[in-house]
């Protein structure tokens, strides 16, 4: 089976450095998710792995082969595009079998493999249809089917669910998860969606400006973000950050080098004024059903978010904010985690 190694990968478009030195190891069978703000180079990196973009510098290995100069179709990778990119002039069957046909797989085998993939994805009844006659979710399944049929070593997904509505998205997400479980292939997945990233990934790669900020399991990134950027990028709503001087007294576990402290909205609890680590006044409370999102103002003027279960106090109430000691994140001036 297949692991993947990126060593010192760089990409330049003209004079612009888009990927600025990425080192990454993807183990065999791992589900890796790339996340990062728009324009950080997730798609570019994925397309370099696919072979759709040249690699300006560095070395890409798939298995034990250096594939920098290998054609896309010979890398043993398959890609599912955001727009699905189904061939509009071919039926579902021909769409799925197209790659096999190009590779010269004989018709009866082609038929078998297309039908096996169609059965897996519940597409049997749609094989004679054209893409325009399918719903969004069905098209998405055909796009995945087209990738499966080629029996690639590595699957690449570029925001495959972003064109689906919320409900279908949740459904397809679980289908992709079970597909990964069943096939056991290495998969690399690009998304904007936190929940997708957290639920699907064995390993998340956080990218910013063409560089890797942190690599880790969803739990590691959430519980021990390596720097301010990751801390604020992972988790929703975003982590609250406060200069350490704004806190009266010393916080438990506070390292010497720390200059900023972070705490997640869901880790904050309301207490009596004066009994928490900092006081605050409630500005607004947004009721979201399961819980309320409170906007509270600290004496320093800064606004914090608090995820609060149960009855929310009315606006203008003074409260204290408490937090379990282990739930505080300390950062140095440089933005790196300090502990």
């Amino acid at each position: 089976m297949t692991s993947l190694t990126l060593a010192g990968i760089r990409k330049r478009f003209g004079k612009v450095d888009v990927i600025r030195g990425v080192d990454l190891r993807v183990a065999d069978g791992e589900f890796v998710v790339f996340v990062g703000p728009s324009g950080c180079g997730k798609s570019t990196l994925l397309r370099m792995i696919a072979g759709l973009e040249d690699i300006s510098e560095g070395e890409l290995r798939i298995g034990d082969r250096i594939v920098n100069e290998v054609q896309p179709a010979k890398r043993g990778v398959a890609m599912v595009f955001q727009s699905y990119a189904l061939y509009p002039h071919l039926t579902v069957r021909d769409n799925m079998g197209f790659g096999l046909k190009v590779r010269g797989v004989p018709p009866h085998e082609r038929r078998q493999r297309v039908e096996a993939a169609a059965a897996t994805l519940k597409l049997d009844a749609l094989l004679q249809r054209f893409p325009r006659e399918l719903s969004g979710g069905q098209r998405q399944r055909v796009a995945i089917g087209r990738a499966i049929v080629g029996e690639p070593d590595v699957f690449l997904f570029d925001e495959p669910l972003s064109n689906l509505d919320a409900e279908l998205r949740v459904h397809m997400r679980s289908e992709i998860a079970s597909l990964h479980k069943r096939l056991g292939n290495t998969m690399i997945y690009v998304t904007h969606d936190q929940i997708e990233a957290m639920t699907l990934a064995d390993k998340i790669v956080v990218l910013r400006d063409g560089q890797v900020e942190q690599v880790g399991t969803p739990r590691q990134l959430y519980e021990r973000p390596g720097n301010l950027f990751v801390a604020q990028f992972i988790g929703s709503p975003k982590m609250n950050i406060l200069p350490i001087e704004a806190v009266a007294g010393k916080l438990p576990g506070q390292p010497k080098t720390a200059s900023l402290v972070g705490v997640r909205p869901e880790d904050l609890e309301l207490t009596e004024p004066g009994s928490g680590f900092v006081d605050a006044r409630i500005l607004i409370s947004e009721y979201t059903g399961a819980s309320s999102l409170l906007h509270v103002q600290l004496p320093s003027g800064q606004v914090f978010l608090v995820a609060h279960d149960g009855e929310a106090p009315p606006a203008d109430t003074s409260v204290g904010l408490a937090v379990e000691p282990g739930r505080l994140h300390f950062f140095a001036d440089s933005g790196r985690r300090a502990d």
Partner: protein
Amino acid sequence: MGGLTQKQLRIVNQVCWTLALAVAAIPFVFPFLWMISSGFKSASEIFGSPSLVPREWQWRNFVDVFTYQPFARQYFNSLYIALTVTALTLVISSLAGYALARLRFAGAGLISLFLVSALMVPEEVTMIPNFFLIKWAGLIDTHWPLIMLPVFGPQGIMATFLMRQYFLALPRELEEAGKMDGLSRFGVWWRIALPMSRPALAAVAIITFLNSWNLFLEPLIFISSLEKFTLPLALSNFTDPYGTPLWHLQLAATTLAVLPILIVYLIAQRQIIESFALSGVKG
């Protein structure tokens, strides 16, 4: 008007439009019908009776057309030349258009500029150098200039730009999917870009075929032997020894000459409509 339902209103609306369009179509359709009917009349009846239905059906006209001059041969000339020009133009314009749309090569901008500027030069200006070129090549009184000039001239360039625009609008991801499926650059063009460009190809085919079919100036300049004539020349050649047109023959011949255009138009139009339904990544 308060008594009309939505549906009745729609019908009234439709009837009015149909009538208006029918009236507007008269100036276009009438000469066409007149041509066909006159093709069946005797020379004297054409100007004698204004009726669209011939008093006496002169089927003989359609036989005389072929005996007066080698009309079958001339008809074939036009047909094979137009088909050749159309085929060559389709191949070249779709290849060149694709290259201009998708390949990044040195001098691409310069080539585009050069081609566009060639479009600005009127045909009257290029005719004389072209004539000397053809003469120098020894191709006077052959069909070569009738094929080469349209394919590589302004019409070919127009077709190339039309194709280029169409290719530019095709979603790139489809072609990338083709690459991932193992297609070569040429394969992507042939098996993905081309099938998706049927409306553009059909448009180019219609325009090119029509142009070649109606070409008059070039055959007039380059062709002198009767059996090498193309239709437009042949049609103007149905005259008596004094140069007066033999209207009944000319109109019968013209009626025959229009048929292929109708056929090409019908085929190409179906392509255009069908493929509009197909186009687009998402429906």
